[in-house]
Every structure is written in structure tokens, then in C-alpha cells.
């Protein structure tokens, strides 16, 4: 699983949420949009590199915005079919629509209560189990 998130506090919460649902997957974290795009490029270049089955993508990122990252990923050779959950503090309808159009499989608004945040685990679990999309 790839987490694209610049805020360590949120990375921590995401890990907590996954742990709470017993989703013990390999997690790779990148901290800005550019790194995320490089990550996909490297995956394309190196067939032995692992390809994420799920990407948790923050929309507001340093350097490159989440939307750009998603657009780039959907054009990559090996990762274009990965599942994507857009994650954001923003509740704006425009962000939701834009990410859905670019092919995000889910949208999670970061809440300001711990218990609420933990629900991200359910979203990830449901998506992984539904089998929508997948590697390569």
C-alpha cells in the first residue's frame, strides 16, 4: 500500500486505522506529490519493484497536488489499475467530483475526532475485499 501524505500526524492515524482492522500490509509512505510521481515512474522502470494495490492519496500536497498525482498514476504502465482513496480535510464538492472523474475509487474526509478517523480502516477494508481493480 502506498500512502501519499505530507502530515506525519495523519500518517500515524492512518497506520492506527489500518492496524485496528488488522490490515497488515506493506506500507510505503511518500511525503509529497513529486515523490509520489517518481515512485510510479520507478515502478514502471523496474519490473521487480513492488506495485501498490491501494493508494491513499492526500489531495493537498506539497509540490504536486493530489489530482496531478492521480492523473499521472492512471497513465503509468504498471500502477494504473491500483485502487485509490482520496483523502482530504476538505469537504468541498468540487474536490470530490474532480477526484472521482480522475478515477479515485473512494473519498475519505479527515475528521477531527479520533474515533471517526479510525473509520478509514473500514473504507480500506471494504474496497480491498470488493476486489475492484487490482495490480497490473
Amino acid at each position: 500500500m502506498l500512502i501519499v501524505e505530507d502530515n506525519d500526524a495523519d500518517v500515524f492515524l492512518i497506520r492506527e486505522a489500518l492496524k485496528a482492522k488488522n490490515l497488515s500490509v506493506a506500507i510505503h509512505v511518500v511525503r509529497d506529490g513529486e515523490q509520489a510521481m517518481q515512485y510510479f515512474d520507478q515502478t514502471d522502470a523496474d519490473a521487480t519493484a513492488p506495485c501498490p494495490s491501494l493508494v491513499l492519496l492526500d489531495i493537498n500536497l506539497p509540490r504536486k497536488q493530489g489530482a496531478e498525482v492521480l492523473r499521472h498514476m492512471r497513465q503509468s504502465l504498471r500502477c494504473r489499475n491500483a485502487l485509490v482513496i482520496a483523502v482530504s480535510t476538505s469537504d468541498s464538492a468540487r474536490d470530490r467530483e474532480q477526484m472521482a472523474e480522475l478515477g479515485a475509487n473512494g473519498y475519505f474526509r479527515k475528521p477531527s475526532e479520533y474515533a471517526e478517523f479510525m473509520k478509514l480502516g473500514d473504507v480500506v477494508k471494504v474496497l480491498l475485499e470488493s476486489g475492484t481493480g487490482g495490480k497490473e
Partner: protein
Amino acid sequence: MISVGAKALTNFVVGGDLKDSVFRELIQALPVAIYMTDAQGRLTYFNPAAVKLSGRVPELGTDKWCITWRIFLPDGTPLPHDQCPMAMALKGAEVPTGIECIAERPDGTRFWFTPCPAVFRDAEGRILGGINLLMDITDRKNAETEAAEQFRAIVETTPECVKIIAPDGTLLFMNPAGLAMVGAASAADITGRNVYDIIAAEDRDRFREFNESVCRGAKASLQFDVVGFGGARRHMETHAAPLRHHDGATVHLAITHDVTERRQAERAALLLRAVVDSSDDAIVSKNLNGIITSWNKSAERMFGYTAEEGIGQSITMLIPPDRLGEEPEILARLARGERVDHFETVRRRKDGSLLDISLTISPVRDAAEGVIIGASKIARDISERKRVERAGLLLCAIVNSSDDAIISKDLNGIITSWNESAERMFGYTAAEAVGQSVTMLMPADRLEEEPEILARLRRGERVEHFETVRRRKDGALLDISLTISPVRNSKGVIVGASKIARDIGESKRTRAALVASEARFRQLADTMPQIVWTARPDGYIDYYNERWYEYTGFNRNVFGHAGWEAILHPEDVERRHETWCAAINAGQPYNIEYRLKDKNLNRWRWFVGRAVPVRDTEDKVVKWFGTCTDIDEQKRAQEKLRRANDDLEQFAFSASHDLQEPLRTVKIYSELLASRHVDGASGEARQFVTFVRDGATRMEMLVRDLLAFTQVIKMDDPGDEIADANDAVKEALANLAGAIAESRAEISTDPLPAVRVHGMHLQQLFQNLIGNAIKYRSPQRQPIVHVSAERRNAHWIFTVSDNGIGIAPEYKENIFGLFKRLHNSNEYSGTGIGLAICQRIMDRYHGRIWVESEPGYGSDFRFRLPV
């Protein structure tokens, strides 16, 4: 046969003597003149018939060659005896048979004969003598001459042209009728000339071919044109046959008639037919039983029946049932030989519709006997004229109802008509005025106007809005404006004039007042700090005040648009022109901002141009009054303000958005801190964590409300969305469900209207106002909130009233400002943004929000939105 006889006779003659006495007797008795000669031609024998024929007794042995006294050729030339056929035969020549000669008796009488000479020869072929039989052909010749004479007479007197033409076209003969036809004075003019010369050029080749074919033996006819010697063209029809000419050639004999008149008559008939067919009038003929016998194209058009359908039918098929009585009367008049002229009636078309027509019916007489055999009927469609007549009546009514005096006069100035307004204006009745000279209306000092007016009318000119003075019957003078137009008759000849007189006394006084006020106005305008101008109703600028000249530095004589466009910013020229034209055309105030060149600073300055139309008592625009106000400073300040506002909004939006993120982290982690590390800690640590969490929560509310506040503006243009206030209240109450339950508030709502507002905004309004009503409730009583709406003119006024703590009057204005709060957060929680959002929403819809309150008893929050 006779020639054969003469040869046979020679068998009986031996040595010049008749041997057989029986034969001799026979010859003696023959009624044919016979004589014989010796080889030298001397007469040796003649019979009694020869004596009888020649009228003399020939002398045997002396007379030579012939028994006759004198011989002539058929053309009358004397023929010497030694050259007569007998002489020729005796000289050994071959004499042709059938020669005709004329002989003269000693008594002068002449006779025609045919000689049949033959010679006797010996065994060696030498001529021994001859015998000749003279056949008297006088009777036949006479008959022939008579026939020729008769033929000649016929040819000479026939009205047809008789001519004979040689194969090469040479005219061999033409009779007098022919000569007359081609305009030749005598046969000499034409004989020997080529006939092709008088054939019309276009027919010449055809005629040549025709002539040659006839000369080859064909019989044929041809029509062609000749152009005679006088240049007259005639149309001819010729019938030709080949004729054997006396020179042996076959020539062309033709009888030709002049068919020019016939053809003209044919053409005239065709023309008449075409005229009848092309006439706009229906032309129909009928017999005396009323049965239709002819029917032209216009009749087809007018009545809808084709000629086929019309002819043979009774004319009554065109007559509507209520007019059937007309037909017997018409027929009776026709039978008496009378004409029916311009009889206006109604006829029915095939499709049943009725038609106004004017009928002219004339009896038709048999050409030979003059007996009336029927009638021709010309029907003219007068529906249009009838319509015009009705329109004429309307016109009459208009003239009579006009407020202007409408008068007509002839070219001598004599009044011929006088409408009701003329009676009112001048005090004369129509009866008094008609027939009088218009000069009766003229004051003595204006009398010279009339000849001038009449002269202009005679030249066909109109006199327009001529302002003058006329005198009423009671002697009072009237200011009037005259418009006089020449009146022409149907032939276009000017026969008089129509005269429209308008009483302008009132408008003249108005104008005088206007001139006076204008002078005062200009005095005033020059002292104003703005540029002031005036324009005529057509938009031409006719005045600028001092400021204009100071600002532009223009010459004082430049008016109109000329000065304008020179100092107007090029990007504003078209827009200003369009706006100005639109204002003039609509007569509506003009208001536009544009840039004018400041000649002192050499830069553009913003101005607002405004103009209003000045109207007279009849609401007609008589002037435009305009100003140009320098708004450059204001405009720049506005622009600065707008940018600052934009920046501020952008800042507020992104600030509130980005502030949420760290706040969320603070909040969640203080929560985690409290649950995982502080639960068992000292009271102080727990209290501090609680402060952090409360602070973060408050900050979160502030940020959220601030975001809502900035989004009131950010939201897309509301457009035409209409929101139902009942729904908006319902949603607001759903969001406030917790607070309502907690406070046990009683909320009631009247039926509410729908308004032209974004649904979200309406909900925000109600949510904030109802939320406040609950929040600021009185601790002493159960909160009661009532929502209602009332229509006032073009607005709805919504009211949210409560029985809460109320608001002191001094804070009534304050509370709508951002972050304005009347209480600390320990008393009442809140961000101070709710009412600011409401105010902002109302600003956006050009509405208004306010509060009416009695502190301690409750508040009525009202907002007003356009219907």
C-alpha cells in the same frame, strides 16, 4: 394527213401531167386548193378550189411558185413568192410541215393557210415538178385569235397578278393587276427585270427554289412577301404551273393574289383574341337565352370556372340567388338594343364566394342583318375599389376627428372643404367657409402670404410647418402652423391644395418660456463644477458650459460629436455612441462611464456621463440635459477597494481552509493525549488538556463559520434559482434538532413563499436566526420561536420571532458585523459570524436584514427579499 395526201398524189402525176382522167376529175372536185408546177415553178395546173381560195384565176405558165397574189409570214412580214414553201421544196429544200402563212387576195381580204408542197422526181431523182395543197385554216386561226384575245382580256382584267417567269427569274410577262401590286407604272418597268429583285429578302431563296422547281415541271403554291417599287410590302399567295414557252423552254406561269389584308385581318383577330384574353376584366359573351358563348382568361381567374366549364352554361350560374331577378331585366334591355353601363352588382365564384363587380353589357348584332344575337359582357372586379371606398369613409372620419383644422382649397384659394376642427379653430361653420376665399382667415398684414403659397403649390411644392397668424371669425388672432400639400387629380394635374392648420399658441408660449429658462440655465450651468451640455432631440450637442472648454481646451464654436470623439478613449467610442443613440431613440436617461483625455495632464480620466430628456407638456422630448462628472478618483479608489476585497476574500478562504488542517491535528492528538496518557495524571494536566481541546474546538467552529462567510460570495452566481422557504426552514430545523431537543424549544411556522434565492443561502439564514433564537433564550421560560412571511409590495418580509433575552437598542446595528458578540463564551457560546453571514447573504441579493427587539421579552429578526 394533207401532206401525206400531197405526196400520194405525186404517184399519179407523170411528167407533170395528170394521166388519169378519173383522178383529175377527183382533184377538180376536191374542196382543197391544189396546184402543180414544173421544175422551174411555173404553174401547170390548179383546181377550182384554188381559184376560190386565192380569189384570182392564176395564169398557167406565167405564175410561178404559188397561186396566191401575196404571201405574208404570221407576223405580217411579206414573203416573196420565190421563198414560199413550194419554191423552197422545188429548190430541193426540206420544207417543214405545219407552216402557217397568210395570203392576201387581190380584193385585200386575207386568209390563213398551211401549204403542203411535194415534188416529183424522175428515176435519177431529178426534180420534174411539184404539187402543193393549200389548207385554208382561216376559221381555225380566227378562233384561235379570239381565244387569245379572250385570254388576254381575262389576264388584263383579272384582279389577280398573272405573270410568267423564266427559269432564271426573268419576268417575261405581268398583267396590269400584277403591275399595280408591285407598284410598277407599266409593263415596260418590269418586263425583262428579275423577279427576285422584288421578293422580300427573307423569302428570296425560298422563291428561287420554288421558281426553279416549277420550271422543272412541278405545280405548286407558295406564300411570300414582295417589296414593290414604292417600297410597300405585300403578302402574296401564288399558285404556279409550268408553261411551255414559244421558244421551247418551260417557264413558270403563276397566278398570285395579294393576301395582305386577309393576313392582317387574321392577325387582327388573333390580336383581339389576345387583348380579350389578357384583359384584366372578365369578358364573356352570351346569346339572348343567357347561354355563355365565350369566356376569357380573366373570366377564368375571376369566377373560377375554366372556359370549358363556362361555355354552354347559363350565365345565371354566376348570379347569387338573391340577384337572379337582375338577369331577365338585363336581357330585356339588351333585346331593346340598349347598353348596360357600369352596373355594380355581386356575382358568385365557383367556390361560392361573392365578388363585387361592375358590369358593362352591350348587345351584339349580326354583322349582315343587324339583328341582336347576344351580348358581350365586361365584368370588372371592384372589390378593391369597394375596399378603397370604405377606406375613404374611414379617411373622412379621420379628417373629421382630427384636432387639426383640415381644409382644402382650389388653385384660386377658394375653400372647398372644411372639417370640424376648422369650425372649432376659426369659428366659421363649413357652410360659411366653403366657397369663400381663404384670405378671409388672413389678417391684413399677412395677405401677401397667399400668392406666395399658391405659387409654390402650382410648382408642386409642399409647404411644411409654416408658422403664421390667422384670424378667427370673432377677429381674435391665432398662432398656427400650416402644412400645405398640392392635391393632384387622377391625371396628376395639380387642382388644389390640402391645408392642415395646427393651433400652436400653447407651444409657442411654452417655447418662449423655454428660451427664457434656457438663458437662466446657462448662467447656472457655467457656475457648476461639472461639465454640462445640452443636445437637441436628435442628439446634436448644441451647448457646453465653461468647464468643457477649460477641460478640453476646445474652440467655443465646436459642437456636435466632432469635439467629443477626439478626446474620447478609442475603446469607449463605440460603446458611448451606441448607448447615446439608444437613449435618444428610447427617450430614456443616459448613463455611462468613459475616459476623456485630460489635456493638462495628458492622461485619461474616468467620467460618468449622464443625460436626461427634457419633455414638453405633450411628453415630447425637446432637449437633452447632460453632465460629465469626473469620477477618476472615485473610480481608482473603487478599483483599489475591489482588489483589496478580492485579496481579502482569497485570504479568508485559504486561511480558513488551511487552518482546519493543523486544528484537526491538535484536536485529535489532544484527544489521544487525554485518553492514553492523561487519564491517570494529576488534575492539572487533565485540566490543561481540556483547555487545549476546548480551544481547538472553538477555533474549529470559528474557522468553519469563517469559511461559510467567505463562501457566501464564492458561491456561483445565483442565477434564476428559486428556493422554497418551507424546505429551507425544514432543513435548518433538521440541522438544529439537537439544540431544539436540548432546549425543548417550541417552533412554529406559517406557510412560506418561494423566493429567488439560492436554497443553501436561505437555509443558512433560517439556521442562523432560529439557532440564535434558541441560543439566546431566556432562562426563565420555554423558548418559543415563530417563523412567518408577509408580502409588502414587491417584497417578502420574513420574520423569525422569539421570546428570548432580546437586544438592547444600542447594539441593534452592531450585531450584524463580523466577530461581533454581546456575550462572553462562558455565557453564550458563538463565533460572532452567524449574523454577519446573514448580512452578507442579504447584501448579495440586495435585500435587507434588521432586528426589532424589546430587551427581556424577545426579538423579531426580519429580512426582506424581492418577490
